């Protein structure tokens, strides 16, 4: 267990190495170094985890203090790591998935001019994330918290030549700052109340945090979590964060960083236990986020945006679990979600690469023939997120829904929101699958199809515009296909302009990208084994993190679980079936479903932009004027005053030594006079 410091130290070493020599290395080596650093960290995590498992349950807590960080009076912060089942679980999936995504990135980032820099940032990100989860107190966690935020910013705007990417990075950074205020204020409040920000100490004396204080602490840290974990009202940055390279989206904005809010609240479960109605707030905000984001995902055409809103929605599920004291469910879903969402993102990356960086799903279609491995693995991810047994997502989502059902008072209502969200999830994921891999129409063969189309307008409207308003359903599709085939040769000359391969055929990605896909697909398949509901002996995860979590509520009895599970499966099947009817069989015009209000994510982002850009900007301008006029005026006034005084006093410094000597002598006389007066004549 003493090896725990190595877990973050290896990615730090990788980061420093790449910082030093990253530019000089030939392409694959920088990636190999980065991958090896994270893989080594994963191995160390495994060793440490096995060591921890061999301990008796009450001894599974190990604090390693590296040095005293800030000894300031009674305020005393160590730089150290807290190793317990929760942190090592996080370490395992961060380093494991991180290593896979590093490996994938070697293929994905091939030929990028900033290849080494990319892996440098990735390593720094992994190191920061490990610091976040291993931190022994809130301040170390905050260090990691800010570190991942900074890396996220750098990586979102990695291709900063495009102004939109740079803006997306700034948006993520600024939005996260709002949440960070909550983190800092929460830390201060914990310090004032308990007198320590040490997690062990917080766990020991959480009883002192009661009533309004506990509620305030919980809400402040929840504010922090809404920033990092993209919940209402701060979720707006995450869809824009898809501007970054796809491995970044997979690692940071789906699998790891966005779960840090869930981790933080689980870590603070001793305080959450006393937080009262703050838990209700968390549960309902989570539910609202899950539902709204799932609705928005239905109408997105950018494949990565669908997944982004899906991530927001799934994170909402985790917060439902937190709010219903179901920490095991939250962490379980966090892990399985990390598996299948990383898988889906990496699969999307593979598709995007095959389509020559085309991300609009309306230009996909029938790709299963060309990229079969990607198709199969993404298909597993689709079944997992849709909640079809025995895939991982089913077990964790079901546990969350069961936990929500058991909440006093409004439990069934909470469950119902979650259930609707689950149906929507199955629906939009099926839509994604069909538009990408099925559909029978290879839209990418017809580059002119959408050349003039408004990007935000849903698919159905485009199809109508091209084919004429008379055709609907299968008829239209057939005509469409005919047109596409007819015009194929004519458009050949424009191919390069649209970036497709010369022969129009997408090709499967290289092995370095497929291996992570296959591994993650396997994990998404069997991830549910971590915590099967059938018997207490199969509650591995629950038993494992049980010593860390305080105040967890029990799930309902088995009969209720069975009923809820069957209902949930039914819902998922209904969602898939409905999507099949709409998008494959075209029984319903998709335009009726994909309302602009959904495509714009309920106009929440637009409202923010309007408010901040209108009255907000005026207020900011006022603040800037205040700064320029009054604050700067005061500062400059002092400066000018000093300058004027200096001009008056300048002649005193004549440069003539004798004058200085005279000054010293007069000073001596004055001193002598003073001494004589003190002697008292």
């Amino acid at each position: 267990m003493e090896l725990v410091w190595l877990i973050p130290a290896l990615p730090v070493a990788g980061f420093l190495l790449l910082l030093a020599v990253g530019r000089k290395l030939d392409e694959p080596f920088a990636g190999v170094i980065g991958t090896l650093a994270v893989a080594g960290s994963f191995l160390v995590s495994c060793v440490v985890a096995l060591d921890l498992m061999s301990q008796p349950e009450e001894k599974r807590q190990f604090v390693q203090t590296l040095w005293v960080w800030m000894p300031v009076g009674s305020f005393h912060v160590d730089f150290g790591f807290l190793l317990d089942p929760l942190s090592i679980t996080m370490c395992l999936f961060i380093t494991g998935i991180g290593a896979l995504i590093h490996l994938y990135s070697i293929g994905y980032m091939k030929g990028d001019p900033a290849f080494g820099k990319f892996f440098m940032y990735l390593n720094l990100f992994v190191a920061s994330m490990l610091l976040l989860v291993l931190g022994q107190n809130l301040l170390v966690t905050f260090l990691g918290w800010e570190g991942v935020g900074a890396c996220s910013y750098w990586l979102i705007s990695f291709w900063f030549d495009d102004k939109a990417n740079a803006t997306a990075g700034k948006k993520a950074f600024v939005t996260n700052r709002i949440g960070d205020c909550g983190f800092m204020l929460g830390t201060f409040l914990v310090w004032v109340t308990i007198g320590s920000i040490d997690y062990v100490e917080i766990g020991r004396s959480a009883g002192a945090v009661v009533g309004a204080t506990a509620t305030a602490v919980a809400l402040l840290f929840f504010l922090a979590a809404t920033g990092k974990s993209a919940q209402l009202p701060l979720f707006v940055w995450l869809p824009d964060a898809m501007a970054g390279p796809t491995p970044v989206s997979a690692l940071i904005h789906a699998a790891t960083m966005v779960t840090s809010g869930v981790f933080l609240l689980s870590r603070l479960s001793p305080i959450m236990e006393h937080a009262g109605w703050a838990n209700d707030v968390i549960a309902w905000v989570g539910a609202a986020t899950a539902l709204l984001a799932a609705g928005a995902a239905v109408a997105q055409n950018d494949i990565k945006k669908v997944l982004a809103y899906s991530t927001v929605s799934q994170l909402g599920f985790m917060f439902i679990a937190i709010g219903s004291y179901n920490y095991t469910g939250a962490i379980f879903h966090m892990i399985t979600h990390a598996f299948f969402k990383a898988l889906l993102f990496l699969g999307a990356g593979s598709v995007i690469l095959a389509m020559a960086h085309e991300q609009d799903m309306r230009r996909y279609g029938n790709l299963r023939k060309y990229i079969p491995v990607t198709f199969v693995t993404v298909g597993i991810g689709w079944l997992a997120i849709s909640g079809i047994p025995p895939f991982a997502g089913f077990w964790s989502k079901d546990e969350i829904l069961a936990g929500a059902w058991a909440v006093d008072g409004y439990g069934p209502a909470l469950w119902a929101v979650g259930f609707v969200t689950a149906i929507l999830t199955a629906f939009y994921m099926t839509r994604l699958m069909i538009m990408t891999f099925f559909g029978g129409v290879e839209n990418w063969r017809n580059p002119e199809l959408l050349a003039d189309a408004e990007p935000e307008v849903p698919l159905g409207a485009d199809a109508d515009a091209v084919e004429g308003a008379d055709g609907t359903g299968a008829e239209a599709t057939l005509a469409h296909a005919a047109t596409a085939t007819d015009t194929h040769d004519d458009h050949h000359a424009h191919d390069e302009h649209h970036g497709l391969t010369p022969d129009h055929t997408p090709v499967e990605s290289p092995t370095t990208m497929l291996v992570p896909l296959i591994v993650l697909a396997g994990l998404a398949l069997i991830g549910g084994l971590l915590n099967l509901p059938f018997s207490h002996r199969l509650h591995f995860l629950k038993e494992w993190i049980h010593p860390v979590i305080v105040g967890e509520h029990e799930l309902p009895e088995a009969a209720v679980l069975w009923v809820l599970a069957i209902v949930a499966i039914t819902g998922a099947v209904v969602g898939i079936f409905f999507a099949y009817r709409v998008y494959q069989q075209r029984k319903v015009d998709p335009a009726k479903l994909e309302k602009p209000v959904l495509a714009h994510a309920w106009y929440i982002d637009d409202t923010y932009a309007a408010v901040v850009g209108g009255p907000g900007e005026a207020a900011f301008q006022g603040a800037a004027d205040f700064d320029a006029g009054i604050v700067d005026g005061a500062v400059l006034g002092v400066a000018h005053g000093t300058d004027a005084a200096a001009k008056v006093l300048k002649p005193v410094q004549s440069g003539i030594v004798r004058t200085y000597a005279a000054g010293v002598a007069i000073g001596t006389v004055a001193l002598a006079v003073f001494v004589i007066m003190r002697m008292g004549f």
Partner: protein
Amino acid sequence: MRVEMFTFLIAGAIVLGGALGVVLLRNPVHNALSLVATLFGVAVLFVIQEAYFLAAIQVIVYAGAIVILFLFVIMFLGVDRIEATERDPLPAQRVVGVVAGLGILVLSIVILLAGGGEPTGQRSATAPLSDQAPDIDRLGKVLFTDYVFAFEVTAVLLTVAVVGAVVLSRRPKGDPIDLDEFPDGPAVAHLSLFVDPDDEGPADDTADAESADAESADADDVEVTS
């Protein structure tokens, strides 16, 4: 006691007379010789107070080394050029100097008398002076025990001073102190003795310089480079 008093008065007169000579005489060589008188008087006073070793190094270091160094520099630079000829541009400085000097004198004597004329403080804090061993033994023992760190540091100081003196006085390509950077200074020609020994005599050169006083400083630079 009478002999001691007598010696003190004579030595004190020498000291004060020498000091006044340093301040009042015009010729730098005379100033330096007056300084020797003062230093010698102080050495005699050391002897009266049984500080024989200090008296010896007072004579050797001050009179023997430092004053010789002064004289050497005076001769080196030329006696007649050392003394500024024009009137003091700051007449008030004389008044201030005399008044401040008198003030220091009167006030310090007042403080002395007010304190009862006796030094106050702990007696023999370092080591007693009045045991039987010769003063050089006692001083040596203190220097190499209580003051050993200070003693070693003085060694460093002397080394630094020697290196500094060499750096300052050698003839570099660019002067360590470039007063020509300072535009308002008096435009005095460089002494060609240091620039070109085969040139005209130093006295003529200076006369030229003074006559060309109002000329631009550029002419001086040309002279250096030629």
